[in-house]
């Protein structure tokens, strides 16, 4: 029988592959398994439809945020166009489903691939541009895509939007929030698994090398431009995949939500969750989605009690203000995000009562 | 004897809270003297200068122990803005001009410590020391030659009316004749302006010719000190820094005795 790995009291690693393991202890593996089990069995049974809706929004946001984190946190390329890529995925999924009548399990990955292609087109400037200039180029990408989504009417039906057919998976209709819950969270588990393992490969190490110092990476023989493009591609694939899932979940889409605000929301997820941390992206998605929902809840409550009657329009600005505040506070106080907070909490529990 | 202008008492410097670079350095600089600081790369010469001028701070370094006394007041770990106002100006290693400013604008940045006071006379003085600069006063500093740049950065420091000038390797990468010129000017500045100078140099022979006093650093410690004349005559210095063995013949690396003697230093 294999020896059980427990948390050692120091760093006893002797080979590089020991550094690269996903689970350093068997308990970690066990907890991950238990977590997944609870996620897929207990939660759908115990929660209300509204909670299921929130879970689903978190799952979709987390997939897209992981994609953006691969680009920002691991490759060091700031993108302000992630919201638009999400939109491209949503539209591509909708068009595949309505025009080509593809089933969902084909049209969602296909939408991811289309978005990856689009993302790589906007990644081309990264061959010549660095840092600030690239950020501006992706900002331009955001506006151009937004424009196309509204004005390329033969393809996107303009401001009318597209209504998607009801989803059938393997002959069975997928209905309600619970059905989607399984699809979304299986996809999320896959996305996390792929992302974590991607970072353990040659490709992931190349990304990190480019992030830390692209000149030096080039000197080490890493072809920068293909890897940057690849990073844009992977990141956009995640965004497109999430976007298509969202389109199917919502049932109908318009171009309106895919604006700069959405891009900033994703960046906020990455920063608040923690750059360069896969679990951080999930934390960020949870945080932002809950923030959104609780702000909505609060303003609704205030309106019901009659404290603010005319301020129905004031939800958006308050949300925007709190978003900005959250980003600013996290950057100033905990630049490594919630993932770092989580790590500190966990290790202080582990070391209790002898933590220093 | 003249008064002591600057005194370092047993200072330690630590970068990023972990890397200890200086381990108890003490030295004293007399007024109107040129003191040269010799030693191999990584011995801690530049760090010593930065500890005095306050430039450790932006590099996450700190004086953790000991005191630096300048005119009998403690200045360790002060901000560079404050220290420069006391008349201590460091000329950085490797000539760092403001590339997109003209020569004259570069020189005017030197007046930052006494912002708002007239500077015309000082410009004339700098041009008097470095006539080469006057010819190019309207040219961009980015296009100057190495020798001109060295003159520029020294002139820029002179604009600040320094009482204590910290020169970090002024001869770095310059042709021998230009080095000679630079050192002659350093000497003149010391004599005519009465500026006290700490000179960090690899070119030990040159440095000991113009200095009054010298310190030798190894591994973050002062290993030897003395007047320039006595250092020049010291057999160890002659061998390790001036490249002459006792007999005056070229030094042999296989000389075991020399290795032992060298070991004793470290």
């Amino acid at each position, binding site marked *: 029988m294999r020896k059980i790995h427990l948390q050692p009291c120091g760093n006893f690693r002797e080979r590089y592959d020991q550094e690269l393991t996903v689970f350093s202890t068997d308990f970690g593996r066990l907890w991950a398994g238990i977590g997944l089990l609870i996620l897929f069995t207990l939660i759908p049974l115990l929660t209300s439809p509204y909670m299921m809706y929130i879970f689903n929004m978190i799952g979709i946001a987390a997939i897209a945020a992981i994609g953006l984190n691969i680009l*920002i946190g691991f490759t*060091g390329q*700031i993108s302000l166009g992630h919201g638009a890529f999400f939109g491209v995925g949503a539209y591509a999924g909708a068009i595949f489903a309505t025009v080509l009548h593809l089933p969902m399990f084909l049209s969602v990955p296909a939408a991811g691939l289309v978005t990856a292609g689009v993302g790589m087109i906007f990644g081309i*400037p990264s061959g*010549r*541009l660095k840092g*600030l*200039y690239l*950020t*501006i*180029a992706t*900002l*331009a*990408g955001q*506006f*151009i895509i937004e*424009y196309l989504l509204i*004005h390329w009417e033969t393809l996107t039906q303009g401001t009318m939007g597209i209504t998607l057919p009801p989803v059938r998976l393997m002959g069975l209709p997928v209905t309600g929030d619970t059905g989607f819950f399984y699809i979304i969270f299986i996809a999320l588990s896959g996305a996390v698994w792929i992302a974590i393992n991607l970072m353990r490969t040659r490709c992931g190490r190349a990304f990190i090398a480019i992030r830390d110092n692209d000149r030096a990476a080039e000197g080490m023989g890493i072809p920068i431009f293909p890897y940057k493009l690849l990073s844009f591609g992977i990141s956009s694939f995640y965004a497109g995949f999430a976007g298509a899932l969202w389109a199917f979940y919502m049932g109908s889409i318009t171009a309106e939500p895919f604006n*700069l605000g959405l891009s*900033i929301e994703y*960046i906020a997820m990455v920063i608040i969750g923690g750059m360069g941390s896969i679990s951080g992206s999930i934390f960020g998605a949870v945080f932002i989605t809950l923030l959104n929902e609780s702000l909505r809840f609060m303003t609704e409550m205030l309106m019901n009690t009659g404290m603010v009657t005319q301020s129905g*329009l*004031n939800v*958006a*600005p*308050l*949300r925007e*203000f*709190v*978003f*900005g*505040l*959250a*980003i*600013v506070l996290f*950057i*100033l106080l905990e*630049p490594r995000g919630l993932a770092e907070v989580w790590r500190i909490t966990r290790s202080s529990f582990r070391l209790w009562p002898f933590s220093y | 004897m003249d008064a002591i202008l600057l005194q370092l008492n047993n200072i330690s410097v630590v970068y990023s809270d972990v890397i200890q670079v200086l381990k108890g350095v003490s030295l004293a600089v007399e007024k109107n003297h040129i003191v040269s600081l010799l030693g191999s790369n990584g011995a801690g010469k530049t760090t010593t200068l930065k500890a005095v001028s306050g*430039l450790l701070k*932006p590099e996450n370094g700190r004086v953790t122990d000991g005191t630096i006394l300048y005119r009998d007041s403690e200045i360790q770990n002060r901000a*560079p*803005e404050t*220290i*420069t106002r006391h008349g201590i*100006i460091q000329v*950085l290693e490797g000539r*760092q001009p*403001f*590339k*997109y400013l003209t020569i004259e604008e*570069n020189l*005017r*940045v*030197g007046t*930052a*410590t006494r*912002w*708002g006071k007239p500077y015309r006379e000082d410009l004339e003085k700098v041009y008097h020391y470095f006539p080469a600069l006057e010819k190019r006063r309207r040219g*961009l500093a*980015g296009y100057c030659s190495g020798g001109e740049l060295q003159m520029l950065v020294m002139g820029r420091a002179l604009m600040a009316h320094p009482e204590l000038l910290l020169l970090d390797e002024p001869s770095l990468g310059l042709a021998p004749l230009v080095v000679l010129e630079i050192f002659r000017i350093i000497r003149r500045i010391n004599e005519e302006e009465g500026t006290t100078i700490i000179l960090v140099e690899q070119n030990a022979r040159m440095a000991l010719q113009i200095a009054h006093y010298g310190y030798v650093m190894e591994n973050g410690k002062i290993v030897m000190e003395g007047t320039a004349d006595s250092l020049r005559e010291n057999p160890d210095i002659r061998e390790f820094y001036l490249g002459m063995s006792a007999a005056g013949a070229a030094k042999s690396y296989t000389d075991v005795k020399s290795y032992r003697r060298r070991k004793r230093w470290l």
Partner: protein
Amino acid sequence: MDFFLQLLVGGLSVGFLYGLSAMGFVMIFKSSSILNFAHGELLAIGAYFFLALATWAKLPIPFAFLLALGGCFVLGLLVERIFLRPLIGEPLIFVIMLTVGLAAMFKGLILLIWGGNLYTYPEFLPKILEIRWGLIRIPPVYGAALIIGALFLLLFGLFFKFSSQGIYMRSVADNQRAALSLGVNVKRVFALSWAIAALVAGMSGIVLGIINGVNVHNLSAIGLKVFPVVILGGLDSIGGAIIGGIIIGLLETFTGGYISPSLRDVVPYIVLVLILLIKPYGLFGLKEIERV
């Protein structure tokens, strides 16, 4: 032909305003290499300060104008002191993201206080500034904008070229370590550059508000349009910003007039991508003097 002239004049004046708005942005970039995504919000804050002082507090116009600019100056100082100074030495991405966060914060705040409605200033400009030439009529505000803008450009040009503080600011942009070694107060330079940038932004915001009315959505959209402008002109050239602004302004009005009004707002960004691909450092950007 008249239509063409109308567009030409309109494009020139809009473009000049873009250039004016971009000036403050370039100033921050020059001194501290920070891309300020909150620039549009700074414009808006200037416009709303003036609005509050001129219409609600009913101060005399010149006094309100100066006071609003003073407010912007102080705001710039505060922003630098509270939000940016703790980040000195941190990676650039944090600083940029911080300005993104600030933009969202300011925008939310303005919306909370003033809402999303369109406000207008009272009519106060003298009619002498109005230019009539055949069918073309240039409203007085463009004349005023031209005068104010040229004045500011001249003032800042002189300030950076000849004044000691201006030279210190340029020296910090050039080589921060060397500036520090000579006793330049780098923190003061950063604070001052934010303050001046906020002042210039506030001024352009007020002018834009006089022309289009004051609305936070419009003004922050113009803040984003600063990017194509400065990329075209080169991120670090103030004169380039004005020329870039004029080019973008002309491009916009002509596309709007001849091709399609809806394309108008995207054209700057399409041009931006093309420029970045062809001439990454803009038309007037400084070439790096690289010496080893």
